[in-house]
């Protein structure tokens, strides 16, 4: 039973946590195995079972311990690492190189990534075509499937996609956890508006040049996926930009600040997701009756979504990615997952349970393929 004024812990008893895990257990089994479990290949079987049980154990722990972020982050970081492993391994197996080939461009076989979406909107509207050398349907990461997945996740989770769905976010999320305390504490809040400037520029330049300019020039994750072969000065400078941005915004700054600086300062997708936070059913809310204004949540937030003024007013900004880190840092359960329209401080556990099911389900199924593939590969490597 939720009480608005008393700090109610989201922890559950062992039995209750197990009960809450059961639906996830059943649904993820169906989705990960595709409804037709095939255990003929021992390596793949082990990989699927480890993934399946591992995910459900983490979901159980979320309910049992009442903590969200620490268990979410485990899958989130593993997702990022395994996706890069999957992509790089496939590229080296097929092409013997991390760079995509001219044949891939000619045959439109480049896997699609959601970061292209901001750049395709204007050209799609004006030319009725997609400015990306990928496949519309069929194949790995085809455009239609990726857009549908992103659209659904954004409508339901809003900027929660950045903490529960994005297969790159785990990189800077992981690096931001390496140090216990930040070396750099004071960062200007204004920087969180930079992704909007990036969005404006990449959307316009992509439309004018008909090239996805963010992917072509400034995506830091090219350093850990695939990039253009270095054959001239221009491609060498591009490689330098990718590596510098990865080293700076994904590795170094998150380590020293304990913030997700790539996601907060550069990603144009983050800007769109921020705007989508206004329409999603799930939000973060502040129970001002329970809040003691200790501001631990402000310090812990990796996305610059919380400010002292906002906490005093009882508001969470639209930059929130619903990672749950603020909730984990709050001893009073004053900041909590909420549902739009439901007053803050009420139905805390109900809101959390519902949000966790929705977001975890998406993350578990979306991330399962690269995790299973990586475990399968490691199994084959070891045995």
């Amino acid at each position, binding site marked *: 039973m939720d009480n608005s004024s008393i700090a109610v812990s989201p922890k559950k008893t062992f039995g209750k946590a197990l009960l809450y895990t059961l639906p996830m257990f059943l649904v993820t089994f169906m989705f990960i195995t595709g409804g037709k479990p095939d255990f003929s290949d021992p390596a793949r079987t082990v990989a699927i079972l480890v993934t399946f049980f591992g995910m459900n154990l983490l979901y159980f722990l979320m309910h049992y311990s009442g903590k969200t972020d620490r268990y979410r982050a485990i899958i989130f970081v593993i997702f990022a690492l395994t996706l890069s492993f999957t992509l790089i391994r496939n590229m080296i197996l097929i092409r013997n190189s991390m760079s995509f080939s*001219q044949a891939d461009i000619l045959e439109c076989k480049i896997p699609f990534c959601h970061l292209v979406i901001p750049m395709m909107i204007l050209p799609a509207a004006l030319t009725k075509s997609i400015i990306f050398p990928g496949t519309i349907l069929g194949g790995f990461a085809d*455009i239609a499937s990726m857009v549908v997945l992103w659209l659904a996740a954004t409508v339901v989770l809003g900027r929660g996609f950045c903490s529960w769905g994005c297969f790159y976010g785990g990189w800077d999320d992981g690096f931001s956890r390496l140090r216990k305390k930040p070396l750099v504490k004071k960062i200007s809040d204004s920087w969180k508006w930079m992704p909007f400037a990036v969005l404006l520029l990449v959307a316009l330049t992509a439309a004018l040049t008909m090239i996805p300019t963010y992917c072509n020039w400034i995506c830091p994750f090219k350093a850990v996926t695939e990039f253009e072969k270095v054959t001239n000065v221009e491609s060498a400078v591009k490689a330098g930009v990718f590596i510098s941005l990865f080293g700076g915004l994904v590795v170094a700054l998150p380590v020293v600040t304990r913030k997700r600086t790539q996601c907060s300062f550069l990603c144009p997708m983050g800007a769109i997701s921020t705007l989508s936070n206004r329409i999603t059913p799930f939000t973060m809310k502040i129970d001002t009756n329970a809040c003691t204004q200790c501001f631990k949540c402000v310090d812990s937030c990796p996305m610059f979504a919380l400010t002292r003024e906002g906490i005093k007013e009882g508001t969470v900004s639209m930059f929130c990615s619903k990672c749950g880190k603020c909730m984990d840092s709050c001893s009073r359960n004053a900041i909590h997952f909420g549902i739009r329209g439901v007053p803050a401080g009420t139905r805390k556990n109900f809101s959390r349970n519902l949000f966790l099911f929705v977001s975890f389900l998406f993350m578990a*199924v979306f991330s399962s393929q690269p995790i299973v593939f990586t475990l399968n590969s490691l199994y084959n490597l070891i045995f």
Partner: protein
Amino acid sequence: MNKIKTTAGITWAFLGLILMIILFPGLSGFSKSFGTLPFMKINPRYSGGEVAFTQSAGACTLAVHKPVFNGLVRDRNTGFVQVDWRGKIPDQIRDTIDYDNDNVPDFVIAVDTKKPASDCCPLSGRVTGLGISSRTSFGWAARINLRKTP
């Protein structure tokens, strides 16, 4: 009013839950439907454009695409024409191409598929040089850079 907002919010949240549950099993169907939307086709600058005409020579078929000058709002001054060789391609290719079917040859393209190396000799003022040229899963493809006005 508060009760209406709460009910609406919880309803919206449950709709989100339903969407998330049907998303993955229904992904194939959703994608197919999404893929039929008018803008869901690859821009000719990437797909190479439609095939204008083909010529067969034994087991190898030469396909010449329509020239691509697509821009955002109107055609650009620079573009390309894609030429494919499909099927069993010979080690040495040398073709004189008239891409616009005006009975005037526009360029000669030579490909050594073994080396691999490609070369293009413009015969028309609108041909500016060789762009990408590469072996593909269907044979070989090359893009020759063009400009609209010589």
